[in-house]
Each structure stands twice: as structure tokens, then as C-alpha cells.
């Protein structure tokens, strides 16, 4: 057969009859009848007009899925926040401390999720929440680090994210983080893999369209860690990035690698202005 993968994919995508291009909806997300989430916002300046509005992945899901996020007792991700709370209070490591020993209540983490990934002066690098958690565990608690995309890390990320729920994402893209941000931006727009797709091909050029039976979102990460119906568990950003890259049939980067940290910083900045939703519910 003499055609390349791109044309094949194009032909398949456009030849499937009956699948209507479904636009994102106009519903509003209020959690527990209290927390009003900003799920649509003016795009941040650095996007230079490539997106007319930025939208949370929530808008691209079916009504039944959206409903699951509206109440903390419908949201299965919340069991893992409870699990994270148990971890927070658990004494571990050579120093005989738990997170609570220094940080007291998880509410002290308010604002953290909204501004990460972030340049850490002491560490001399951009850090994600996961890196910060392991930094604390290893250096302050003398405990083993959590696996970067492990269940325990996801639980802790969910506990920390919940403290910033409703707050607008606001990651810094200038100053010492600038280089990392530029590297992430370049990755975002680079075509990779057998299918020669970049993040932008789907999430910037085709959000709102159907890719087979999946409703493409803008690929925002304000809702992470997210409880996915597909695997009935919490998923972290790097785990999802890895899955996405694998789906383009490319060699994936490693969770926790500089490439993914840069990408996370860049993708997070594309959502500056949307509310932190974690843990969210997605397909």
C-alpha cells in the first residue's frame, strides 16, 4: 500500500459517517453547591490568539460524566483524597516525621497547586508538586520517595490539589522558569512518532472534534490528578502525557524527566485563569 500514515489517518477520520462534530457545552460547574469553578476563561497573553477561549476538559465530557464532579460524594477521586490525608498524617522515615509534623493541616497547602510547576530557588530547578513532595520526603523526612506516577503520589497530589480548588491556575512563565517554559512550548508544537502528531495538532487545531469516539479537549491540566472512568483510578499529569505520546506511536519520555517537567510547565500555563479542579472526573 503506497500511502503514509498521515493520509491514512486523515482519510479514516473524515470518512466515518454519522459522527457529528460535537462542540463543548455551556454548562457551569459548581461543586457541592458552593465552589464556583471557572471552566472557561480569556486565554493568557502568551498564547498569542491561537485559542479564542480556554476551556476545562470538563466541558468536553458527557452530561453523566460532568455530573459526577459536582458533588464530593459522587466524585470517586475524593476517596483518594481521604487516602492522601491518611498518608499526610503517617510518620515515615528516619526523622520520625509525617507531613503534618511540619505542615500541620493539609489546608496549609492552599495555593500550592495553583502555582506549580514553579522555580525552586534552593533546588535550582523548576519543580512539580511531585518533585517537591519527594524532595521533602527524602531530605526532610528521611523517607523513601513515592513512585512518580504511583497511587500514593496521586493520592498526595489530589490532597494538595483539593486545597486550591476554585483558585485560578497561575504558573509563572518568566524569570528563572523561562528556559524550561520555552523548552516545553517547543515540545508542544513538535510532531513526533509514527503518526507524526504534535500536542497542538489535536488539542489546539482540533479540540471539539471527535477522534473516533473520543471528544477532543484542549488538553488542559487544571483538573489533574483526574479520576478516569476508563481505568477507575486517579491519573497524574506525567502518566497522561506518557499515554498521549505512546498513542502517537512515539518513544515516550519518562515521567519525572526534564522533558515532561518542561511540558507540564508549558501546558499548565496554557490554562492560566482556569480554576484548579483536582481531583476532577474525566473519561
Amino acid at each position: 500500500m503506497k500511502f503514509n500514515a498521515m493520509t491514512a489517518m486523515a482519510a479514516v477520520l473524515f470518512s466515518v459517517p454519522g459522527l457529528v462534530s460535537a462542540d463543548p457545552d455551556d454548562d457551569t460547574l459548581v461543586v457541592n453547591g458552593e465552589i464556583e469553578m471557572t471552566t472557561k476563561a480569556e486565554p493568557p497573553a502568551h498564547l498569542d490568539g491561537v485559542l479564542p477561549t480556554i476551556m476545562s476538559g470538563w466541558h468536553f465530557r458527557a452530561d453523566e460524566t460532568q455530573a459526577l464532579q459536582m458533588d464530593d460524594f459522587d466524585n470517586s477521586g475524593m476517596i483518594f483524597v481521604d487516602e492522601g490525608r491518611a498518608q499526610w498524617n503517617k510518620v515515615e522515615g528516619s526523622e520520625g516525621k509525617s507531613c503534618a509534623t511540619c505542615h500541620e493541616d493539609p489546608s496549609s497547602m492552599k495555593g500550592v497547586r495553583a502555582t506549580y510547576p514553579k522555580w525552586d530557588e534552593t533546588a535550582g530547578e523548576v519543580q512539580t508538586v511531585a518533585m517537591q513532595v519527594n524532595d521533602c520526603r527524602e531530605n526532610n523526612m528521611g523517607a523513601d520517595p513515592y513512585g512518580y506516577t504511583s497511587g500514593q503520589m496521586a493520592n498526595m497530589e489530589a490532597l494538595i490539589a483539593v486545597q486550591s480548588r476554585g483558585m485560578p491556575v497561575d504558573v509563572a512563565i518568566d524569570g528563572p522558569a523561562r528556559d524550561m517554559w520555552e523548552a516545553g512550548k517547543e515540545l508542544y508544537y513538535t510532531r513526533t512518532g509514527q503518526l507524526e502528531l504534535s500536542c497542538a495538532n489535536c488539542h489546539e487545531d482540533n479540540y471539539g472534534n471527535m477522534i473516533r469516539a473520543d471528544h477532543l479537549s484542549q488538553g488542559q491540566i487544571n483538573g489533574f490528578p483526574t479520576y478516569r472512568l476508563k481505568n477507575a483510578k486517579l491519573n497524574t499529569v506525567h502518566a497522561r502525557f506518557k499515554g498521549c505520546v505512546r498513542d502517537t506511536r512515539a518513544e515516550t519520555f519518562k515521567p519525572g524527566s526534564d522533558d515532561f517537567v518542561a511540558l507540564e510547565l508549558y501546558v499548565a500555563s496554557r490554562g492560566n485563569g482556569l480554576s484548579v479542579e483536582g481531583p476532577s472526573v474525566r473519561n
Partner: protein
Amino acid sequence: MASGVRPRVKAPRSAEAGEVVTIKTLISHKMESGQRKDSDGNVIPRSIIHRFTCDFNGTNVIDVKMEPAISTNPYFEFEAKIPEAGDMVFTWHDDDGSVYTETKSVAMA
């Protein structure tokens, strides 16, 4: 006993006598259906929560027989009548013999 099983229940702290209230329950559990195979091709044996009950002061509200088609992290929403102050007791029965319980006290409003 399956590890890491954690219930999460929404029940009102107080109610009027005779009031009908909404109860929501979640529990973290894999609900291994017995349909999956491991990387060697062997069937992973079924291991699910097969029964969920809710009783108020010893009288039954709901008793659910659960099969492998109930999703991972089983969720139930139902309504209960609260005749008086008392304890709402929830139990989840695991195939491996464990019984997980959670109790929520309801006062009279």
C-alpha cells in the same frame, strides 16, 4: 483482607423524625471481575465485594447483591427514612470473607 479499602459515606448529621434523606456511599475496591487475564494468559481470579447493606438502628434500609459488573470503587445512592435518632450502619462483604463497616450517627433536628 484486601488492602487499602476505604469507605466514604454521605449521610446527614441530623434529620426530622420521619424525614427521607439521600445517602451516597463509595468504597475503594478493585472489584476484580474474574474476566481479566494476566501477562502469562492466566485468568485473574474474581475478587469482589458481593454484598452491600445499610441498616438504621438495626432495621434494614437496603441490601444489595453485587456482581462483577459493578464498577471498581463501588458507588451507591439511595434514600433512607429516619424515624428517630440513631446509627446508620453500612457493611460491605468481600469475597475473601472480610466485612468493611462504617457507621454514621444521625441526631434528631
